[in-house]
């Protein structure tokens, strides 16, 4: 059984050495085998940081965003290949190392988040492709002694007027001597051949044969595995631990205290895990040992009775509400939620006296590197991060506190050997950084003609940005509230003359973080449910009511009408079924969804979801469809099943039996539609999430007459 073992070890070792540590899980187009980095780097040229052109015609695009399923290893190469006029079948990809050249052009750091990869990479990757093309053309022009303007490019070759042809591979070595252009002309988007096409993902072959390498799969020679015993409640401090039993267990190399708990370091995961379970730790649990989510929500509901920090104020909603005859008040609640990526957190690290290598599926390379460097006592440039594939991210792997990387660096310092820290599913689910629980208290009214007259929304929940480097960037201090807490509520598009949005910052010691669609994950639910309640109060069709209030928002209207039309809004349905609708703007994109549900004996069944997206000019409709399908399913899981609850500081959910999600047998049919647009390309990973819960909740109202104001949805059995 030594052959596969050697293959993998040698591959990793070789590819890492040969590439200076760049590559893991390379994909060779047209085949299923990994590329040897040595072959790939054999000869050729690198016109800029984003592309390498081989004499073997192979073109490697260096991707500065992490691949967590959203398709950046395909969509960003498409943008580059478009301008390069490359042969798409020759394109491969490679994760970028940590380097300022790969910084996010907007955030100024290497980060994957905010549904911005394609939006921010759109011109960046086009320019890189266009610059490379110009150099290849210049080299061909020199060889043929022709003016570059007399030449054209197609499918990986430069051609002259008589169709003489030089391939990029033939030009590659000499083109390296050409001075890169300061600015290369970009194509008129009307002439795009590749961008806009439903190309297949480049990373699929490796994901169907077990060869894709995720962080948890990293095993450098001699690398040990660590599993940690962490505190039972957030903020707990370790007093002492007894490892007498654990130390005697097979494979155990070392047991050490680190700031987050006790690290058990062993030869294999199972040995480390069994020994971890045998360590007894005495904790000072601190204030959080009495924390209950039921109390917190009650407290939030009380808080929402008083005015909060004003975020937006149009007209005088308080006066309007006081005098209104037709008014309604509703309180919406959403729970804490973990990201629950299928690949639990992990971080592999080889820390030596003067350097450090880290292999992990991170969304936040710049901050992770700086954090690891600080703990290791090394300058950041001595720390390399190899970004592996991410077995899901959803925001969790962009931790502004670098929690899983800092912890692993502490473990590595103590281990004295290369070590991979692996979190069990329970560790991952209970390890913090959740979507914060929120309460929205909304009051609104309609006038005698059934027009929306007022809306006053008070939001209460923990700030994600507080205590992070984003606090300043987001201008929290000046504003007096966290913009991420109210996003999607403060820009309510409906034409309502009297409107107030107020924010209360909830205080609780629960670590919180962005979770796919961030603030929109709760503001979309509350606002789109409440507009539905206002429509009912006005005795109007919820779709027509929204249309009437969105006259100045053509792109909202565009997706709303497309989703309604494709879903057959207003057309008869089989007995017991009903539709609900929602529209929301998030991450610069517009999404509308129509959900079709039935409720039987208290059990909600979502039969179908139609999702329409306007993300400007789209790059790959196949990947976008997948993001909309996945976004709706991710959101349906949260709407129907998911919550984290605390009792005495302890989480009641530990694994997938207590934290269920949509599976094959209850997965709705999902139909997706894209708006054709020439507008700027915008996000897709997150915008497909916010509408799902309110569309389902509104459909339940249509089916049963019962309003859903709390997630996850719990129907009385009688319904």
């Amino acid at each position: 059984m030594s052959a596969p073992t050697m293959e993998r070890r040698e591959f990793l070792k070789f590819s890492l050495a040969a590439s200076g540590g760049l590559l893991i899980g390379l994909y060779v187009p047209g085949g299923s085998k990994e590329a040897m980095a040595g072959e790939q780097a054999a000869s050729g040229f690198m016109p800029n940081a984003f592309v390498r052109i081989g004499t073997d015609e192979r073109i490697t695009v260096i991707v500065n965003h992490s691949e967590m399923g959203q398709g950046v290893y395909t969509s960003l190469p498409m943008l580059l290949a478009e301008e390069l006029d490359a042969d798409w079948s020759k394109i491969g990809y490679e994760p970028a190392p940590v380097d300022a050249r790969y910084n996010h052009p907007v955030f100024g750091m290497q980060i994957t988040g905010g549904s911005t990869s394609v939006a921010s990479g759109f011109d960046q990757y086009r320019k890189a492709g266009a610059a490379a093309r110009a150099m290849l053309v210049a080299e061909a022009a020199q060889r043929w002694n022709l003016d570059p303007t007399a030449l054209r490019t197609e499918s990986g070759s430069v051609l002259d007027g008589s169709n003489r042809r030089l391939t990029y591979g033939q030009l590659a070595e000499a083109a390296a001597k050409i001075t890169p252009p300061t600015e290369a002309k970009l194509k008129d988007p009307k002439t795009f051949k590749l961008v806009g096409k439903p190309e297949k993902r480049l990373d699929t072959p490796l994901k169907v044969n077990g060869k894709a390498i995720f962080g948890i799969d990293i095993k450098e020679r001699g690398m040990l595995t660590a599993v940690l015993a962490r505190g039972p409640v957030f903020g707990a401090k370790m007093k002492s631990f007894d490892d007498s039993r654990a130390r005697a267990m097979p494979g155990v190399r070392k047991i050490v205290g680190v700031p987050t708990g006790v690290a058990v370091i062993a030869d294999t995961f199972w040995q480390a895990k069994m020994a971890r379970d045998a360590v007894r730790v005495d904790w000072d649990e601190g204030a959080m040992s009495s924390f209950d989510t039921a109390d917190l929500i009650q407290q939030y509901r009380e808080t929402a009775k008083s005015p909060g920090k004003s975020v937006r104020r149009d007209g005088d909603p308080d006066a309007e509400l006081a005098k209104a005859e037709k008014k309604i008040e509703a309180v919406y609640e959403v729970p804490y939620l973990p990201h629950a990526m299928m690949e639990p957190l992990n971080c592999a690290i080889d820390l030596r006296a003067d350097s450090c290598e880290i292999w992990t599926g991170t969304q936040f390379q710049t901050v992770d590197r700086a954090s690891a460097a600080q703990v290791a006592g090394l300058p950041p440039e001595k720390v390399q991060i190899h970004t592996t594939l991410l077995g899901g991210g959803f925001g969790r792997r962009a931790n502004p506190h670098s929690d899983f990387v800092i912890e692993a660096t502490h473990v590595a310092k103590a281990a004295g050997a290369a070590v991979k820290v692996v979190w069990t599913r329970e560790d991952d689910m209970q390890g913090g950084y959740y979507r914060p629980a929120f309460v929205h208290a909304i009051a609104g009214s309609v006038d005698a003609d059934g027009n929306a007259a007022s809306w006053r929304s008070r939001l209460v929940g923990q700030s994600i940005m507080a205590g992070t480097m984003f606090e300043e960037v987001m201008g929290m201090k000046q504003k007096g509230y966290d913009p991420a807490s109210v996003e999607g509520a403060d820009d309510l598009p409906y034409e309502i003359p009297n409107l107030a949005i107020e924010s209360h910052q909830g205080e609780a010691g629960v670590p919180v973080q962005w979770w796919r669609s961030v603030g929109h994950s709760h503001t979309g639910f509350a606002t789109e449910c409440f507009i539905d309640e206002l429509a009912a109060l006005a005795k109007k069709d919820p779709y027509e009511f929204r249309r009437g209030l969105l006259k100045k928002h053509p792109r909202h209207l565009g997706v709303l009408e497309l989703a309604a039309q494709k879903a057959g809004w207003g057309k008869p349905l089989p007995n017991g079924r009903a539709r609900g609708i929602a529209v929301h703007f998030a991450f610069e994109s517009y999404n509308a969804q129509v959900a079709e549900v039935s409720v039987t004996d208290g059990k909600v069944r979502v039969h179908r979801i139609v999702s329409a997206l306007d993300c400007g000019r789209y790059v790959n409709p196949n990947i976008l469809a997948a993001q909309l399908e996945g976004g709706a399913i991710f959101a349906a899981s949260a709407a129907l099943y998911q919550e984290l609850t605390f009792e005495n500081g302890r989480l009641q959910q530990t694994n997938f039996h207590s934290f269920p999600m949509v599976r094959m047998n209850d997965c709705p049919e999902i139909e997706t539609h894209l708006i054709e647009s020439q507008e700027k390309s915008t996000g897709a990973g997150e915008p497909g999430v916010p509408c799902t819960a309110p569309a389902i909740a509104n459909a339940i109202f249509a089916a049963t007459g019962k309003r859903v104001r709390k997630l996850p949805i719990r129907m009385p059995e009688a319904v």
Partner: protein
Amino acid sequence: MISFSVNKRPVNIDVDPSTPLLWVLRDNLELTGTKYGCGVAQCGACTVHLDGEAVRSCVAPVSRAAGKEVTTIEGLSSDVSHPLQLAWIAEDVPQCGYCQSGQIMSAAVLLREKPRPTDEDIDDAMTGNICRCGTYPRIRKAIHRAAGTIAKGGAK
């Protein structure tokens, strides 16, 4: 010493017999295509075949494999030519890809037992496999596609 075979190669391994097969595959044999997702047979990411039956290797002690044939995703085909792998590529199923080894191994047993599965058969066979990215609709399509391929005598 426990002896069994993995992807048609003989294995003799000296580990605690209660060690889950998953961790023997991943840590001792370095076949990392089989994934850890939950450790309690709730997600199916660790699905492998034991004498042709789909088992959750995270809760199957390695002793259960003694004298048997284990097939992992790496052994399904040597060249991405299994009808399910081709169908997965044709439907562009994976997103993050982490759960897909387990999905494919579950689907392979389904197709062997029911070469023309109905949607209900797919529900029954695949509901034990979680996909957090939400690729279920494409998995369903890919299984139907592979079944069609098999029925037509295409691929192997």
